[in-house]
Structure formats: structure tokens, C-alpha cells
């Protein structure tokens, strides 16, 4: 509904139920204000007064709703006097604001605008600046207690660190129980800084920028938009971009402080060739110059092309493989698989999803026809029940975490399934602390309980699914009693959670790698999908099956077809019509055989079947399981080319190292976890001679006598749109204003936030029967602990990017092995002590740390730190259908070092 209103005499039509301030803003006019915070009633500065009605009455525009035919005056002599008077009396108490803060201080800006002169200021406050936080300063003397930081921290991010302390004239902001900011539970998201109108909370060393630019954050798959301040061609600060439909101005520590890698002096700037071929191994303290020789691009491309031709003629196309980078753009990944398939002629292409969410994509695709999240992030606002399984959202996806916390505060039923206590546990109705790896048993028992108690959605089952009877029969073994014995969770809790999920609808399920990175990862995913299918919790707002994707473009990477056996857009490799379409478009034959997954390629290399590997942007040595096995495999290759932005541990093994542009240095698109394709904007030229990946592929193809036909990244998107039906309506131009969620059927379609509404993409929803196999008890006896490898909030994967940020390094200084205090006592360990962990694959040493959140019998650590190379321990145990490694459940034993 719209209403008619008059703003300074001009008639406008405005959406009803909005504030005067918002209504005026939509006409392009900003009413002066110091405390307004989008979506929250604050109303404390009182600067936003306007006059309404006749005779005119003054009201705060931020907290007064418009009414039909309202006459609003935003300027008048009375208002001018009022505003000037208010700014004057505020300035009187803040003599510190004296022109030095420039654009960061709204108060000063207004003081100038209203010609404010302060006579007889109050004596300056006697306060000390809090500089205890590594990246943020707090100067109480500049604070006007507008409370925006409190809203940002407590209500928007729901980190709940900042509050107003004390009363009246003595009010001030405090962190936790009034401790220095650096000692508080602050997670360094920066929302308080971004919201502060005066610079009282400010980045250390903040300076005004020459220009700003907006692009997508280079980290996780939530896909936040970030506004960067740029000075002297360097990013000097970052803040959340308010206009984004994804993050609405919020960021996490990585987005806020993790941009320094771009300017790092360690960036690769020229192609490098190993001086002594054959001696593949780590630098081991040697300088890059000692081991590598810089070469021109021409020479690098020559070498690479020669090696490819050589391998192809001697060993056949099957001997060549390539791994795509999921931090690269859709355009890059598309170009990569086209290069591999059409120019090189092999289907040995993969991307890092195999190391994470492949079971999710592939089982969702099996059941529904689309290997992607069925719903959108915004559905958490509509859901009545949220089930979070195997998800460390707090650390891995902080901005999505805020949305879930907000929902929990509003009273949603929150159920957590995780072997470890996580931050979110405190907000949950139930936290099921199950034994690692037993998820599929839990969910199957829930399904059985729901069916046995007639809590299922019978209509949905009969009209929208297939294979139900067989599925139902397969559930026979999964009684509550059995599930309780296997998972360690009491029967009544399993029943209660099942009941809540089935009846307190709409219910949505989120999961991440705690579900997929198991020997039975695909079964885990399927057991969740089955739950949604029997309760009809899919295809409606507030429901859904949502794997939260990891890397910023891992969804896009799979969409683009960098997956062996799956052409772009998940189009079947062996379908003749599909093959015809691609062959015609590319004027080339497609390979005849289906290729290997990345973990299989490493295996093939070890066996001498793969001869040439082209790794782009993956630190395989650290991220693949059984690191030592992976190293041995890489050493066995005839030729290893690595393309990256840094000299990673993997690049150290390469024969040829190619310098790539980072996402700040090229245009293209990323597809986030909710299928939203968003534009990546180029901010700088790449350093030195580094180039966007797609350009490198095009040049290589040319040397192989294949014409990729790409003049620009937007050319590539045109080709993508022509070949992938769900991207058909996407173009760079359309994405300029807002991202679009695929499927986007044509140029007029505005995208799809909700999949499978009336029918599943594949027709009917398909159940998948799963089975359960107990672990070998003798293994448990020898290796009594289950090791979970996860992540911290501040770091990203193998830290190639995050470790270059000064602030992040200061916040989180190193890796630990976290252990339950009871176990520590039993093993006679103390925090900080170095211990040895051994699995059947390898052994490492590391410092142990007590943590109550880790249950007895479980160890937790990360893979961020090079001095704690945890994947040395993970065995090459895979989920059979997808070859995803079992990072989340490695049997280990621990020993004291004497």
C-alpha cells in the first residue's frame, strides 16, 4: 500500500508503515541525524526533528510513521534554529572535536554546515583512550552516546559486547563487564566502528580515503559486499556495504581486517621456473630466487604448452589434470574447464568442493535435481525451527551466524547437532552432543520416530516424492534405542527434537562440513534430505535444505562445471544433446572419458598414471588429507604447474609458478551459498605482471592452437548465459545494481530465492536409502581419540591470505590442539605443553590447550597454521560416492613428550 505525503510542499507517494525519515530518504533527501540505525528504533539524538501538520508540530522523523496526506516540513527557520542549537550544545561538551577528524565525524560536519560557534566549552573530559584492541581505538572523549555501536554490536551482529554503562552524565560505553576492549569477548567484526558517527570508535591509523570502491569479500561463501577506502592505490580500510541484500552492512573480522594480503610484498609478481627441474621440494628456508628463476610470460606459456603437448603425445590426454580455484570468479573457472576440456582435451578437472561440500551438492542433486541450497539466508527470519548440523557458523560464517542469533532471540526453536559445544549452544533449545560421525543414525532415527508417530506430511510424501515405501522399510533398524546407543544421545531427546522439527514448521536445516567430511558424508547428507522430504520442509518460505558453502565461489565453481563428469550447469557429460551443444559452441570435440576427482588425481599421480598437474589457487599440500602421501604424489609427477597469488607450500613444489590476479584486481562474478550471483569489481591493476586467471588460460589455449574467443570477463559471462540455462538471464550489466539468484531464466526474470516450490527440479523428490557400519573396535582401542579439524573465526583455510593481515595475526596468534580438561588430567597434560598426536597415517607435534567445549574422547584443531600441519594425520579415507575426505573424524592417539 502506498500513501500520499507532502514533503516541503511537493506531493510524493510513499510505502505505508515507514518512518518519515525513510520516506524522505527515498526521495533522495537526508534529514540531519546522528543516531539513526537502519531497522532499529533508536531515537536518542533528537536531531532528526521535522515539522508536520498545521499548525506545525515537531516530531522525530526517525521514530514517527508517515500517515495519509501528512504534510512534512524538513526545512524551516524553527528547524534551523533547533538543529543549530542542538549541535551547539553537543559541541560544547566535546571540545575535542576540532576539525581534525574530517569526514569521519558527522558532528563536525554538521557544526560546519550550521555555522556553529561554541562559546565557553565545558572543560575537556579527563579520560584515557582505550587502545587495547589490535585494530580498534576507543576515545571516550569523542563519544556522544548515540548508541549506534550498541545497536550494531548487540542487536545487529548479536555479539553483545558493548553496552551503555553507568547513568546520566556519567554514561559511557563499556565492553563486557567494563573491561578494556582488547580483553573483551569482541570478535572484531568492526560493526561498531562502521556505525560510529564521531570516530570515537575508529580503526587504528584511520585516514581519509582518496576514493572508495565496492566489491564482494574475497573470503567465505556468504558473499558480503564490502566498501573499501583506497589511498595511494592501497586499501586502507574496509566497511560493510549497507545496500547489500546479503550482509546489510555487516562484516566479520576477515572482511573487516583481512584485506592486507592484496598489498603484501609476498605477492607473486612474475612467472617463475624451477632452476633445477626434478628437485621438487619445499623451499626450506631458501629464498625464492635461489630455487626459481623469473621468466617472461612468453617463456612461461611456451614451457607450459610444451609440457602439455609432450604429456599428451607420450602418455595421452588422461595423464593431464587440473584443479580449479574456488576463490576465482565464475568466469575464471568456466574458462579453466573449457581450457582443460576443449584445448587440452581431458575431463580431469575438479575444484575444491571435493574437499568439502561435494556430498551435499551431489546428494541434493540426486534428490531434487539441483546441487545447491534450496532456500535463501533470509529464510531464517521466517522459520520456526532451525536445525544446525555439524556447523561452526560462529567461526566460519559469522555474518550468517548473526541472522541465526537474531532469529534465536526472537524465539525460534534452535536445535544444534554437533559433537562440540559451539558458541551458538547458549542460544539453543537443545544441543545434541553426539559421537563424531554418527549423524546419519541420529537423523534416520528421527525419521523413523516421525513416521511411527504420524507426524509426517503424508500429502507431501504422496504427491511430491518417490521411493517412499522402500525408504520406510529401510528405517527398520533405526529405533530410538539403537540410535541412542550409537550416538550417545538419550532417547527422549532424539524424540523431542524429531517432534519439534516435524511439527514446529516451517523448519529449515543448515549444515556444513561436520556432516560431509566423513567416510559416510553422503549418507549423512541424504539422511537430512530424507527428513525434509517426509515432513514437507522444502519448497516453502522458512523451510529448506541449506548446505552453507565454504569458499566464496565454491558454489559457482561447481555451477561452472569444474567437476569431472559434469558439464557446466550440472549438465550430464554423456548426454548427446548436451555434448552437441558444447561441441558446437566451442568448435571442438569433448573428451570421451569421465575424468578424476581431485583426490583421485592425487592418487593417480602417486600411482604414476597422472603426469602433469595444473593446480590453480589450491594449497593442496596442506588441505588434502594425508599430507605426506600428497607430497609424494606431487613429487612423482613429470610436471607440476601452480598458479596462485602467493608462494604457497604447494607452489614450492612446482616446476612452473604462474602469478595470478586477486579478486580485487579483476572483474567477474561470484556465486554465494544461496545461489546469488554477484559482481566482483576491479579495484586495482594486478601487481607486477600478475594476470587474471582467464587471461592466462586464453593465452595457453592459443599456444595449443585453440581459440577461447574471450576478450573480457563479461564475454565469458555471455557464453555462460548461452550454455547454462539457470544463468541464461545473467549479464554483468544486470548485476551492476544487485545480485541475482539462479535460476535466472531470461533477461527479464528476476531470479529465484526459493527452489522446488511446486515440483522438484527433477520432478519428484527422491529418497535415498542409507546404511550404517560400525567402526572397527580394535581401531578405537589403539586410537582412542577422535580428531576434528575445523577452523577459527579469524583465519581462512590454510591462512594464505589472512595471515598477511597485521590485525588478524595480532588477534589470533597460533594453533593449538584443544582437549577436554578431564582427558588432559588423564593424560597428565597441561595447557601449553607440546604433545605428539599420531594416526595410522602420520604424526605431528603441537601445543595442547584445555577447552571445556570439547567433549571427552574428542580433540579439536584447525588447519590454519603451517607449524601445525594437521592434515598429515588425516587418512586417505573417503566418502565413496564423492571421494570427499573424512577430515572430521580421524582416529588418533596422544603421547607425552619426555
Amino acid at each position: 500500500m502506498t500513501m500520499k505525503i507532502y514533503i516541503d510542499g511537493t506531493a510524493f507517494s510513499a510505502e505505508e508503515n515507514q518512518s518519515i525519515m525513510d520516506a524522505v530518504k527515498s526521495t533522495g533527501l537526508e534529514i540531519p541525524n546522528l543516531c539513526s540505525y537502519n531497522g532499529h528504533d533508536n531515537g536518542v539524538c533528537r536531531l532528526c526533528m521535522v515539522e508536520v501538520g498545521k499548525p506545525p508540530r515537531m516530531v522525530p522523523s526517525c521514530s514517527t510513521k508517515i500517515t495519509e496526506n501528512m504534510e512534512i516540513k524538513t526545512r524551516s527557520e524553527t528547524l534551523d534554529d533547533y538543529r543549530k542549537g542542538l549541535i551547539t550544545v553537543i559541541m560544547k561538551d566535546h571540545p575535542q572535536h576540532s576539525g581534525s577528524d574530517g569526514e569521519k565525524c558527522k558532528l563536525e560536519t554538521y557544526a560546519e554546515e550550521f555555522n556553529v560557534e561554541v562559546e565557553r566549552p565545558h572543560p575537556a573530559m579527563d579520560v584515557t583512550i582505550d587502545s587495547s584492541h589490535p585494530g580498534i581505538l576507543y576515545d571516550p572523549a569523542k563519544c556522544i552516546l548515540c548508541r549506534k555501536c550498541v545497536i550494531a554490536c548487540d542487536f545487529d551482529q548479536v555479539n553483545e559486547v558493548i553496552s551503555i554503562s553507568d547513568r546520566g552524565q556519567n554514561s559511557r560505553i563499556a565492553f563486557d563487564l567494563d573491561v578494556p576492549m582488547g580483553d573483551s569477548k569482541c570478535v572484531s567484526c568492526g560493526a561498531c566502528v562502521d556505525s560510529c558517527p564521531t570516530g570515537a570508535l575508529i580503526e587504528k591509523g584511520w585516514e581519509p580515503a582518496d576514493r572508495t570502491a565496492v566489491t564482494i569479500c574475497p573470503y567465505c561463501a556468504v558473499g558480503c559486499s564490502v566498501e573499501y577506502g583506497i589511498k595511494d592505490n592501497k586499501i586502507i580500510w574496509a566497511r560493510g556495504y549497507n545496500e547489500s541484500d546479503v550482509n546489510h552492512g555487516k562484516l566479520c573480522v576477515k572482511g573487516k581486517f583481512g584485506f592486507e594480503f592484496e598489498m603484501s610484498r609476498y605477492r607473486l609478481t612474475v612467472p617463475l621456473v624451477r632452476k633445477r627441474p626434478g628437485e621438487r621440494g619445499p623451499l626450506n628456508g631458501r629464498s625464492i630466487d635461489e630455487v626459481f628463476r623469473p621468466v617472461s610470460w612468453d617463456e612461461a606459456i611456451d614451457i607450459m604448452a610444451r609440457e602439455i603437448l609432450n604429456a599428451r603425445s607420450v602418455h595421452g590426454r588422461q595423464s593431464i589434470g587440473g584443479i580449479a580455484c574456488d576463490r576465482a570468479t565464475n568466469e575464471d573457472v568456466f574458462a579453466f574447464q573449457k581450457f582443460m576440456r576443449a584445448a587440452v582435451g581431458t575431463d580431469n578437472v575438479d575444484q575444491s568442493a571435493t574437499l568439502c561440500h561435494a556430498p551435499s551438492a551431489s546428494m541434493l542433486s540426486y534428490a531434487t535435481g539441483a546441487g545447491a541450497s534450496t532456500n535463501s539466508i533470509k529464510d531464517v527470519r521466517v522459520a520456526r525451527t532451525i536445525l544446525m548440523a555439524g556447523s561452526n557458523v560462529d567461526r566460519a560464517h559469522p555474518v550468517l551466524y548473526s541472522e541465526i542469533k537474531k532469529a534465536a532471540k526472537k524465539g525460534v526453536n534452535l536445535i544444534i547437532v554437533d559433537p562440540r559445544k559451539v558458541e551458538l549452544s547458549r542460544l539453543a533449545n537443545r544441543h545434541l552432543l553426539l559421537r563424531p560421525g554418527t549423524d546419519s543414525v541420529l537423523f534416520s532415527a528421527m525419521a523413523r520416530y516421525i513416521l511411527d508417530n504420524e507426524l509426517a506430511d503424508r500429502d507431501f510424501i504422496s504427491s511430491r516424492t518417490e521411493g517412499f515405501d522402500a525408504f520406510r522399510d529401510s528405517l527398520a533398524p533405526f529405533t530410538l534405542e539403537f540410535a541412542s546407543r550409537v550416538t550417545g544421545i538419550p532417547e527422549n531427546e532424539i524424540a523431542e527434537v524429531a517432534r519439534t522439527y516435524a511439527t514446529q514448521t516451517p523448519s529449515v536445516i543448515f549444515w556444513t562440513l561436520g556432516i560431509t567430511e566423513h567416510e559416510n558424508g553422503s549418507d549423512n547428507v541424504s539422511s537430512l534430505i530424507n527428513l525434509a522430504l517426509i515432513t514437507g520442509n522444502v519448497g516453502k518460505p522458512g523451510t529448506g535444505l541449506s548446505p552453507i558453502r565454504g569458499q566464496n565461489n565454491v558454489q559457482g565453481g561447481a555451477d561452472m562445471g569444474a567437476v569431472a563428469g559434469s558439464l557446466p550447469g550440472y549438465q550430464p557429460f554423456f548426454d548427446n544433446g548436451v555434448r552437441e551443444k558444447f561441441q558446437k559452441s566451442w568448435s571442438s570435440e569433448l573428451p570421451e572419458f569421465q575424468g578424476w576427482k581431485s583426490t583421485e588425481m592425487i592418487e593417480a599421480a602417486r600411482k604414476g598414471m597422472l603426469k602433469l598437474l595444473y593446480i590453480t589457487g589450491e594449497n593442496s599440500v596442506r588441505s588434502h588429507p594425508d599430507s605426506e602421501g600428497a607430497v609424494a604424489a606431487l613429487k612423482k609427477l613429470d610436471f607440476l604447474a601452480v598458479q596462485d597469488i602467493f608462494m604457497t607450500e604447494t607452489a614450492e613444489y612446482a616446476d612452473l609458478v604462474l602469478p595470478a590476479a586477486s579478486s580485487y584486481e579483476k572483474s567477474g562474478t561470484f556465486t554465494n551459498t544461496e545461489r546469488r550471483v554477484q559482481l566482483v569489481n576491479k579495484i586495482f591493476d594486478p601487481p607486477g605482471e600478475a594476470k587474471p586467471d582467464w587471461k592466462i588460460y586464453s593465452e595457453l589455449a592459443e599456444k595449443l592452437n585453440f581459440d577461447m574467443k574471450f576478450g573480457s570477463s563479461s564475454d565469458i559471462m555471455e557464453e555462460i548465459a548461452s550454455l547454462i540455462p539457470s544463468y541464461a538471464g545473467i549479464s554483468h550489466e544486470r548485476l551492476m545494481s544487485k545480485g541475482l539468484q539462479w535460476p535466472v531464466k531470461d533477461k527479464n526474470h528476476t531470479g529465484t530465492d526459493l527452489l522446488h516450490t511446486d515440483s522438484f527440479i527433477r520432478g519428484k523428490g527422491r529418497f535415498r536409502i542409507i546404511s550404517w557400519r560400525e567402526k572397527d573396535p580394535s581401531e578405537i582401542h589403539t586410537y582412542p581419540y577422535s580428531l576434528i579439524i575445523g577452523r577459527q573465526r579469524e583465519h581462512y583455510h590454510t591462512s594464505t591470505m589472512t595471515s598477511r593481515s597485521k590485525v588478524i595475526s595480532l588477534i589470533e596468534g597460533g594453533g593449538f590442539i584443544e582437549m577436554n580438561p578431564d582427558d588432559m588430567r588423564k593424560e597428565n597434560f597441561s595447557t601449553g605443553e607440546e604433545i605428539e598426536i599420531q594416526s595410522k597415517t602420520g604424526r605431528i607435534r603441537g601445543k595442547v590447550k584445555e577447552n571445556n567445549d570439547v567433549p571427552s574422547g574428542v580433540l579439536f584443531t584447525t588447519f590454519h597454521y603451517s607449524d601445525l600441519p594437521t592434515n598429515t594425520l588425516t587418512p586417505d579415507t573417503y566418502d565413496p560416492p564423492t571421494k570427499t575426505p573424512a577430515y572430521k573424524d580421524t582416529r588418533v592417539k596422544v603421547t607425552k613428550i619426555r
Partner: protein
Amino acid sequence: MYNGHKAEFLEELTSGSNEDRKSKDFISKLAEKHGLRLSEAENIASFYTHSEGKVKVCRGLPCSLKSTGIERELLAKYPDEELEDVSCLGYCDKAPVAWSQGKYYQLGNGGTKELEKQPYGSDFREVKDLKEFLELNGYETLISFLKKNNRDEVLQMVNDLNLRGFGGAGFPVYIKWKAVSASNEQKKFLLVNAHEGEPGTFKDRILMETNPYELLEASLIAALVVGADEIIIALKHEYLQAENTLKSAFEKSMDFFHSSGVDTALPKMRIMRVPGYYITGEESALMEAIEGKRSEPRLRPPYPAEIGLFGKPTLIDNVETLLYFLGRLREYSKDWSKIPGTKSYCLTGDVKNPGAYILPYGSPALDLISKKGGSNLSDLKAILPGGLSGGILTSAEGNVKLEFDSIKAHGAGMGTGSMIAISKDRCMVDVMDSIEEFFERESCGKCMPCRYGTKELSSLFENLKHGEATGKDIENAKRTADVMMKGSICGLGQASARMFLDSLKYFQEELDEHVSGKCPSNVCFQEAR
């Protein structure tokens, strides 16, 4: 579950000892117990300094007018951290007073005297027990209302009588009652505002202590009329005696209701003391305090009648508003419109007989000052008709009638009907200094016009008092006062500005003389000499 238990946290916190209150460890454990984040605990705990161990010393205007300067000396045996300045203890006629562990003390020249058994004054009849109340036809009106259940008729009476609230704002009673009774929500509250805080006001306390039954009856009927199923009588933290009196009266009454067979038809009743400050008397700040949050006014709309206590429709009325309503309802069957009803007025400051008095509603000010107070108008320089928030009148206006419209016509406000008299010998700058300091201290700090404005006004008088203010400072303060009048969220910021503007209206000359270094009353600049 997520949202912790703030009210329980606050209750346990403020009933802890001084030692506990200072300990971060104690607060963080308490936070955990009640499911609060540390920041929430800090937010609440730092707002309320209350603990049972504190000795409170009153600095409200009536007490500071009567101060002999030795109050602190008299309390020297207490360590500093146990002493706390407060702005009104509600014993203004015995000024200057202090409070400790529920007991009141007068800090006179003769030393510290416990004010044990209150002489309430001859106007107030103490109803000792239920029997006496029943003999005075107590609860008859309630029982007959229960029989007739004539809600609409009673509402109509409230409207016809044009009843106005006695809590300070003088808001038409009917509008709120109508709105709450129109709401279809299951849960509705009647909140009885007994958080009496206006300096110079103590009539609510006396009314409750002398006849607790009367308030119970009035609240029960009011709740039934608007359909509220729960009554909360919220007393200020110091009113321990009133709490006990009300609670025991309620217990006895319940027996009576039970034996009369009406107990099941009655709403729930909670009688509680609420920690807070002057601002806590403001209705939305009171609801916040009851919910265990910082006692800061809410933004309105939404009004309490839509979204009030714990998010439910809430009728909030002052103690005396309800009592006055009951009085009128009792007269209803008789020739009620001709009988004006009576009101309790407080009189403090520079008069011979300070105290609380009952007069026909709308009596001339002179009656209160001379007949009851025993003083001559001609000895006074100014009268503040409504505590510190009703503005200022001069002694020339002694014929003003003590009711809303008449006082308003004279440019001031009746507020709670509590008059503070200022003697001819006083220096207005000195008095205003105390008043503006009060507002500076009591501003909750939420909105900027008030937090910054009260600070400026207070520093202006501080400077005037020391001969350090200029005419320009006064001009600038006028503009600030204008901002406060227009922009403050609640009446506190406006009251502060209004007092200043009224002082200019009547006593600008006196202020100006201070600018040129003279105090006509020879009060200021004494130390310098």
C-alpha cells in the same frame, strides 16, 4: 533459552550487600545464573547503585533548603562508599532527612533523630485494620461493582467528571482507561505508580501508609473496569514501610474476599518495591525498571495502553488518581457532581508548618500557605506549585486555584500538587542552582537535548553563583532550553528547561545582577569576601 531473566537478575542484585555490588565476580556469576550476557549485566548493574546496605542522604530542594550543612558530619561514622546522595526520599516535611535499612532519620541541629512513628498530620485518618476500614463502608463499592459489573457506566462517569491524573502530567484519565479497556488482549496490566519521586512530594506515601485498604479497593475496581488481570503496585525502593503496610492489608483483605466469595473474580495483585531514581516515576521508565532493564523512558508511540509492561496493554495511574476516582465513585449515587472531592497537597520549603494537607480540590494557594502552612504570602519570593517540574509562580499569584487549568492559566503547572515555598531572603540564583543541579543529576542520559542541556543549565547557574557567567551565556542557555523543550524524550528535560525559562521570566534582574558580580540577597560570593 535465549533472553535471560533480567527482572530476577535485578532483584537479586539490588538485594545484595554493598560488598557484592562492587565485585565483578559476583555480577558475572549472577549474570550466568540468570542467563544474561556480561554486557547486559554491566548495562543493568551499572545503572542501579542500589543495595540494602546503603545510607541515603537527601539532597532534594526541600531538604537542601533546610540543610544546616552538617548532615555529612552527622553521618561521619559511615564509610564514604556506603553514603549516597539521592534526590528525594519522600519525607520532605521532615527535612533534612536520611534513610538507612528502611528507616528514616532527621538530621537536625539536634543530631540524628529516628523518625519512627509518623505523625501524619491531623488531616489524615489512620485506618488501623480491616475492621475499621469495613466500618467506614470499605470494600462496599468494590462488592457492589462486582455485582453490577457496570463497566461502561463507570467509564462514562470518569469521562463526565473530566478526571485528570495526579502523577504530574494531568493527563485525562478517560482516554487511557478507554484505550486499555478497548484492547482485546488476554493479558493486561494495571500499574499503580507509587514510585513517588518529585521533590516535595510525599502524599502518596502517606495515603498508602494511613489507609492501604483504600488503594487496594481503588486499584481492584480500576483493574476490573479496564479488564486488567494483574495489578502491580510499584513503590519506590525506599518505601519499605508502605510496602509492608500494603502487603499485610492485602493478606487480610484476601481472607475477607474469600469469605465473601468474591476472591476468584479479582485480578492478581503484586506489591513490589522497584529500585530507581527520580526518572523511574516516569511511566515508561517505571515499566523498564520492573522488567529489570535500565530505567529509561521509552520512545512513544507505542503508548503503554497498546504495548506496555512486558509488551502487554497497560493502564498506568498514580496512587492518588485512583484514590480520587474511588472517592468520586463512592459519591456517585448521591449528588456527586456538586461535591468537588478533596485532594492531598504537600507543602514544604520556607513555611512554618510543612506537611501534607487535605483541601477541597481547587482551593486557592493562599489557603494552603496561610491556613495550613501558617505563613504569610508576603514573606515569600516564589512558589513552586508542582515540585520541581511545574515551573515558578511569584507570591503575587497567591490567589491561583490549586487545580490544573487555573495554574496553567498563570503559566505554570500543578504537577503532583506539591508546593515548595521560597522565602524572600533567598537568592534565586542559589535556588536555581540547586534545581538545575538536580536535573543534571537525574537526567537518565538517554536523549541528547536533556543530557547535554541539563549540563549546560546547571553549569550556567554554577557560573552565575561564582560571578563567572556572562549575559551571552544566559542567551545561549535560552536557546538550549528551547531545544530541550522541543526535543527531549520525556518531561524531565522539559521541566529543567521550563524552570530556567520561568526563572528568567520573573527574576531576570537577579540573574543579571549576578553577571555583574552582585548578589542582591547576599547569599552568593560569600567565600570570596
